[in-house]
């Protein structure tokens, strides 16, 4: 068991190294660089650009730049953003909260609504509700989020003036009510897609469970439908959903790019896009590594769960 864990850990570290090399290489080989935004700035000369590139170390061979970056990383120094010269971990940290807030709210909506729609669709299979929810899920999955977000803003902010058209809070307000008001639209838009996915998974999971022997046994015992559903069906059907929820972990870091853009949400998705746009190498590398670590942790946890659940693996 201990050896198995060590081997998995070793594999993960090798993988992480590979990810960082490939990421670093791709990023730096992409044409353009952090200074191309200045090439047309008034009064800035070629000499200025070459001097700054030299001062930033951008004119050295790529392997040297990589090794230096890696060396600093191993010592716990993730580098500083080219944009605001803050430490990379600080930059990531300052955007993580906004994304978590949005993601958790959207997931909350999705789990509540998705479970309900999925279960209802399964136990009333081929009913009008089932057809409607199936069609609704398809529509929700197909609607471009950007367009849907703008429509919601148009309806709720421009026309009815009920909710703000974006931002995480009114600057200087800071009350819980204000935060919630700002959260409704983006969480609903982001949650909609997840509701659709979640309800489909839930529906098939419930359908699978209701045909199990223990459900038939419960029914034969004379339990009420309600008790069967809550005590036997739902608890078993939710098990695979926990795995699905676990796999969502890395997406928390990547954020919801489109939703964050439409609703002016200062989260990870926007940070990633802005950092790529500015060729802010240290931040992009930081984000890449961070999400790679999350994926590996997710996989590692899944492995552990299997280990606990499957005695055959333990024996091996």
């Amino acid at each position: 068991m201990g050896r198995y864990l060590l081997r998995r850990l070793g594999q993960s570290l090798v993988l992480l190294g590979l990810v960082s090399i490939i990421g670093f290489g791709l990023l730096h080989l992409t044409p353009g660089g952090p200074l191309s935004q200045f090439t047309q700035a008034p009064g800035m000369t070629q000499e200025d650009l070459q001097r700054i590139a030299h001062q930033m170390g951008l004119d050295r061979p790529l392997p040297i730049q990589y090794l230096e970056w890696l060396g600093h990383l191993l010592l716990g120094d993730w580098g500083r953003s080219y944009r605001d010269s803050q430490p990379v971990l600080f930059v990531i940290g300052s955007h993580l909260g906004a994304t978590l807030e949005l993601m958790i709210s959207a997931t909350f909506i999705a789990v509540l609504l998705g479970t309900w729609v999925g279960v209802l669709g399964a136990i009333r299979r081929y009913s009008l509700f089932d057809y409607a929810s199936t069609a609704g899920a398809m529509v929700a999955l197909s609607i471009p989020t950007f367009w849907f977000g703008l429509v919601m803003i148009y309806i709720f902010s421009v026309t009815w003036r009920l909710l703000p058209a974006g931002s995480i809070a009114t600057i200087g307000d800071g009350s819980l009510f204000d935060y919630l008001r700002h959260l409704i639209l983006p969480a609903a838009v982001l949650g909609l897609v997840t509701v659709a996915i979640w309800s489909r998974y839930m529906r098939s999971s419930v359908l699978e469970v209701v045909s199990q022997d223990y459900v038939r046994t419960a029914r034969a015992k004379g339990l009420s439908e309600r008790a069967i559903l809550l005590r036997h069906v739902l608890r078993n059907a939710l098990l695979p959903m926990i795995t699905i929820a676990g796999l969502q972990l890395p997406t928390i870091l990547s954020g919801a790019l489109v939703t964050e853009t439409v609703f002016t949400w200062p989260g990870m998705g926007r940070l990633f896009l802005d950092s790529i746009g500015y060729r802010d190498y240290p931040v992009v590398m930081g984000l890449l590594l961070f999400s790679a670590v999350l994926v590996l942790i997710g996989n590692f946890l899944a492995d552990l769960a299997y280990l606990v659940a499957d005695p055959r693996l333990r024996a091996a």
Partner: protein
Amino acid sequence: MRDSPPTGLSRRRLLHNTAIGGAGLLLPRSLHAQPAPGTPPKGQVIIGISQEPTVFNPLKPHIEVDEGVYMSLFSPFWSIDPQGNFLPQLALEIPSLGNGGVSEDGLEWRIKLRPGVVWHDGTPFTADDVKYTIDLINTPGFPAMTRSGHRLVRDITVVSPTELTWKMEQPYAPYLSVLAAMFLVPKHILSASADVVNAPFNNAPIGTGPFKWVERVPGDHITLAANEKFFGPAPHIARVIYKYVPDLTVLKTQFQTGEIDYIGLQGISADHYAEVKTFPDRTVVAAPLGFVESIVLNNERPIFKDIAVRRALYAAMDKKSIVDDIYYGLPKPTESYLPMQSWAYNTGLPAQTYDPARARKLLDDAGWKPGAGGVREKDGLRLAFTNSTTAGNHVREQSQQVLQQNWQEIGVEMTIKNLPPAVMWGDYWIKGQFDTAMAGTVYGIGADPDPSDRLSSASIPSKTGSGFNTAQFSNPEVDGLLHHATATLDREARKQDYFKVQSVVREELPLLPMFQWVMIEGTKANLHGYQPNVNVRSNCWNVSSWYWT
């Protein structure tokens, strides 16, 4: 800047080059009276911008939106108003021959500083801060944004806390304009920092400007508060918030819902202009920018060495259709590379007329005969080339299609080859790898009309490794005029030189001028004092004069 129109696509580029010289458009004076002097600042203004300001040491490499924040936080020696006049800020007067600020040979400078000015932390501002600022720019390890002009400064001497002198290695007339964009930084803060490049100052800047730093929420906004110790007229607004709204459609919507009070960089896209004009209680303005859209020819390509080709291409360009049909008639067609508001703008240049017949005749006379596929040929050369600009800029792509058609009609084949911004404006542009490019460019230095960096033969980067004369234009007469114009501070003499340069460039056509850009901006109708200024890189230049009614 180089490439991006207020149509919204690449905003960062858009403003890169807004900084040129000349007088801007003056809005009609508001009928509402300004608050009386002594009235305490009140209320707040939320400025919506589609790029995030992130660099707060004004000497480090930065973009336009950063500069908008600098103009609230920091002060230069003097600022520039929309008419191109210098207004004393930290300096008591503008150095000139008359007041003894500059010697006759342009080499000795003397600056008198305003007494009694304090930094936001209460420390007095002195000549030592000035010396520190210029020295820091020239410090080898410091990544200064630009050393243009500053690198010529020698022997800075602090005469007294309010006076200093320096020598220039050679006379350099644009330096007055360069200094108008040099924001002074506090010596007592930065020199105390072990690492000046990554000093805490970068995220807690201290200046002498009308507003003080309050906070920055990364990815979201920056808050500034009125500086009650400001040396100039006290700001009318208590708080200024720079709000980052990355998407232009969303920016427009938040302007409509009232969540932002002023829509700045990079404004409202031209296709939304008509709609935004109908918003109640909003004032919408097409503010002129300093950059001029043109087709830049790579003058080292053999086909473009024939002046008949350059003239024929220009004559066959349907400028009016491009401006009216694609840009909604907002920008103004131009014959010069300078913005029309510049004091050196030559109004006497001949106007281009769309005349395909004349274009065909020019080519016929020069011996370019129709060959395979209707494309003209001469001595084994085909009149075929590519035109490049930033990929994804749909408005520019439409202009390219019009030109493609215009030139096809005279037997010239233009192929569109657009590239991502970082590629387009990298080596491809600088090292002369393009045939022709569609670019919006500021030709002067800061607000000064001197185009040496873009039109002098000493500034061809592929040959001399310096400058931005990417058209590779080389003309001894222009070189001489530019040399003469930068060596004198006499504005009248410089004007004559620059007039002549514009005539030669219009005659020789190393680039085919199209129009001067505008940016559509807007404010709430009861917010007053906003005034577009073509001479600065952000129209937030005078936020301290804004007020509500």
